[in-house]
């Protein structure tokens, strides 16, 4: 898959994640999942999924042209 198609897929995934933020199906659910209230557990997992998607974005669709003035060297 070329980079443009990958990037498009990732942008679609971001939009889907944006939609999934609105968890109306858990609105009144007071049960516990992983020891947390269902709504809170959902949004905690949401944060981890967001981090995973960001990792894909960084590794598969990084704007390489912005690194042109990079001077390299050790980083902390």
């Amino acid at each position, binding site marked *: 898959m070329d980079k443009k198609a990958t990037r498009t897929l990732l942008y679609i995934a971001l939009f889907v994640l944006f939609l999934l933020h609105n968890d109306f199906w858990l609105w*009144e659910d007071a049960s516990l999942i992983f020891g947390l*209230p269902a709504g809170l557990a959902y949004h905690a997992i949401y*944060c981890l999924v967001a*981090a995973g998607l960001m990792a894909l974005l*960084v590794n598969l669709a990084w704007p390489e042209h912005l690194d042109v003035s990079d001077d390299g060297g050790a*980083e902390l």
Partner: protein
Amino acid sequence: MTTFVIFVYLIIVLGIGMLSHRMFRGTGEDYFVASRSIGPFLLLMSLFGTNMTAFAILGASGEAYHTGIGVFGLMASSSALVIPLVFYFVGTRLWSLGKKYGYLTQVQFFRDRWRSDGVGLALFAVLIALVIPYLLIGVMGGGITLNQITDGQIPTWIGGLLVCVIVFIYVTYSGARGTAWVNTFQTLVFMTLGGVAFAVIVNKYGGLASALEQVREVRPNLLIFGENIKPLKLLTFMCIPLSAGMFPHIFMHWLTAKNARSFRYPVIFYPVCIAVVWIPSVLLGMMGVLDFPDLQGPAANSVLVQMVARHAPGFLGGLLGAGVFAAIMSSLDSQSLSIGTMFTQDIVRHYGFHDKMSESQQVLFGRLFVTAILALTFFLSLITQRSIFKLAVWSFSGYAALFPVILAALFWKRSTKWGAAASILSVVLLWIYFFRIGWENPEYTVGGVGMMPVAIMLGVSALAMVVGSLLSRPPEQSVINRFFAT
């Protein structure tokens, strides 16, 4: 013991600030943006620490006390998606342009992008006006924390003064590098101590499951979104984290990055950091109803500090107090430095010295302005009502509504200074309009259906940018080539 531990912590903070000064190169670029030398880990920690204010730490638990878990969806997980994307799409590009053309402030970029001093000046005024309540919240939060954690032994004004003096010393002495180093330390401190506080306090309730069961018995609605949060509010609250794209202090930290790759850690790990800090804060705020069932309105903002004082007095209480101080100072330092940079570069250097100013003069003025800003903030904190905390969300809303300005500057070649001016004007007018309504009624949403005013402000601002740009003459090709070469 509590006070002793906090003072030891503050001395360590000062020591780190002093240590970083050993790398100071004596130039304006080094003082204001650490010679653009900060790597990915320090960038992640300093960006996260800067964005986690007293409002986030104390306000999150206070809000959870009233509305329960919904506050995490509103303020935390929305930020976990939006803020890393702002870093990815906006931060990296601004860093690249900043490095290429030597920008030190947002206004320098906007002035250059649209060839307009007027737009630069208007943005300067709006950005400064919106950050003032933010600064005050930090200083007042420090005072209130120290007062409550010492059971009233230390007056509020001394806590505020202490915060200002410590920040003053390491920011004026070490500039942006000191700020980044200290922020990293402080971010690690408040993330770690937040976890410790959570474990200790939850243990007092017999574990998490037991604590949540007790909350369920007293206030079952805190365990659900329910009536506390309207669906439209959750949806439109997503606009608020866009504010990160226009915060002067976030912009300053972006410019400190060594290269574009330094943004990789902030983009990936920011959502994880959000979860680590906010989940304990929200849960502790909810558990606050067990010990302090009658807190009304803004009084709930102190619930976290009160719980620490009750359940973890002495040494641990001091450590946890230090954690709250860490969150406060890691924002206040960046905010005061970025405003000092703006006054130095955008006003004194541009208008007073016609952009010809020696390196030592820039550093001197930067230090003078940081001193003046902290002094002014401290004196204002003495005469300001605590209801200032309500202003925080309005501050965020104003910055978020300006997001179309930066988006157009970076991605829309056809955008013009007239579009930018129209956008800024619309934000100012709508902000004043909604603020007048919202100040009287903190629960106000547009039409009473849950829509946050920021959504309207953002939409109108974007529309104004488009209409204003299309109705005015297109920008010159040389300008487009300068900013859209790649």
